[in-house]
């Protein structure tokens, strides 16, 4: 399972439908489920890193990263480099306490800040201190949520082994929808499978990350469906 087309190939027969027939779920609904699943998995696991190189213009105190040409959404910066060297994070409040004229300082930046910046949804605003006195190269390492394309040939921006999680999310959402096919117990079953894949993705991501980054909790994946065995009438 690798592309959006593969997911649809499994999804429609599993709900007793077919792509093009769409008796129970429209193509648009299925695509929306898919996009939500990928975003949820990418946000929670932080499995996708993007490195953005940007020439910071002299005298610009701040900059906003919006949607790139590929449609990637930036979620959080975990490392910033100025002139190929790491700079440290600070906050606007610390800068104010340290120096009331901090906004007038110019030179080669050695700190960056992110807080009190975002006024527009969808934009990721950042600042450097002191304000760069000349144009300077910067590099921003972001955890990102790539825009999902649901065209059949499009790859899903998740590790290949974790892509069935998207299918489980779609099935859970389908069986949660009001209508004749609604079945909350089946929905919860698929939801449990989805959460298990997501937890595994967090762990695989976390185990390769630098030591100063942590995500996820201490819960371990396992027999997530155990509680559904036997008397299913006890399922809440």
């Amino acid at each position: 399972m690798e592309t959006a087309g593969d997911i649809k190939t499994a999804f429609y027969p599993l709900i007793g439908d077919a792509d093009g027939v769409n008796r129970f779920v429209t193509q648009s609904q299925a695509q929306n489920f898919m996009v939500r699943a990928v975003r949820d998995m990418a946000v929670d696991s932080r499995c996708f890193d993007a490195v953005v190189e940007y020439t910071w213009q002299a005298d610009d105190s701040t900059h906003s990263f919006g949607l790139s040409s590929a449609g990637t959404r930036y979620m959080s910066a975990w490392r910033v480099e100025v002139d190929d060297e790491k700079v440290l994070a600070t906050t606007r409040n610390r800068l104010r306490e340290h120096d009331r004229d901090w906004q007038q300082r110019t030179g080669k930046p050695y700190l960056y800040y992110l807080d009190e910046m975002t006024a527009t949804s969808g934009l990721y605003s950042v600042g450097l201190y002191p304000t760069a006195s000349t144009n300077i190269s910067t590099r921003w390492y972001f955890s990102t949520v790539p825009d999902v394309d649901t065209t059949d040939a499009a790859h899903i921006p998740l590790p290949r082994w974790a892509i069935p999680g998207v299918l489980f999310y779609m099935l859970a959402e389908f069986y949660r929808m009001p209508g004749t096919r609604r079945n909350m117990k089946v929905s919860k079953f698929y939801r449990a499978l989805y959460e298990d894949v997501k937890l595994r993705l967090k762990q695989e991501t976390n185990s390769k990350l630098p030591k100063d980054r942590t995500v996820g909790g201490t819960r371990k994946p396992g027999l997530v469906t155990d509680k559904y065995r036997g008397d299913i009438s006890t399922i809440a």
Partner: protein
Amino acid sequence: MSQVVTGVTEKLQDLLPGRVGVTWPSATVSVLAMAADAAFKQRVGQWYVSEEISLTDNTLAYDLDSKFITVKSVEFSSDGTNYNYHLKAATLEDLDKINLSWRDDRGTEPEYFFLLSCPGIARDDDYYGTGSQILIYRPLSSVTAQKIKVTGIGLGATTDDVPPEVLDQCHVNYCLSLMTAHEDLAAAADYMAEFEAGCQRAKTEYRSLYAESTVKAI
């Protein structure tokens, strides 16, 4: 030995007579069989894959094949044939300690590697761009035939051979669980539990490689 897709399809035809190819199109069974194989390999962690990457001048980051689940080792070859030694895993903070301007360093043999994004994300230039990447330090300023070989736990192909008992205990149960959940949830949960138990059995089996020696697998 059975191949993943054909083996699972044959077994499901026996268990669900008249439904494979009708209720469940062959393409759907094929996708589910490969999903089962991916879940099995992620849990068992014993199937190794590798990729050789030819280095290029002054290049720090290289695309990593999407077949990887976890990267276990990276080796370097100066002649493109014989792999001379291992690269050590390092964080970018580790590299900062070596030299704050480590990006500008060049050498003749890389010593460290770092991974960007969780392994397994494919590059797709038509949609979102770069996927998983491996960074090496120090990059080579002038490459002749040098390569690195990345080895790790990974996914297989639709035609990979799998022991039939593994197909029975793992792949088939996984597919049956998904195919029957809307009809009989308790049975689907049992199938999934059988799949998990099958993975544990396979994991134990394949980790007992040195059962008769004094070497103990961890």
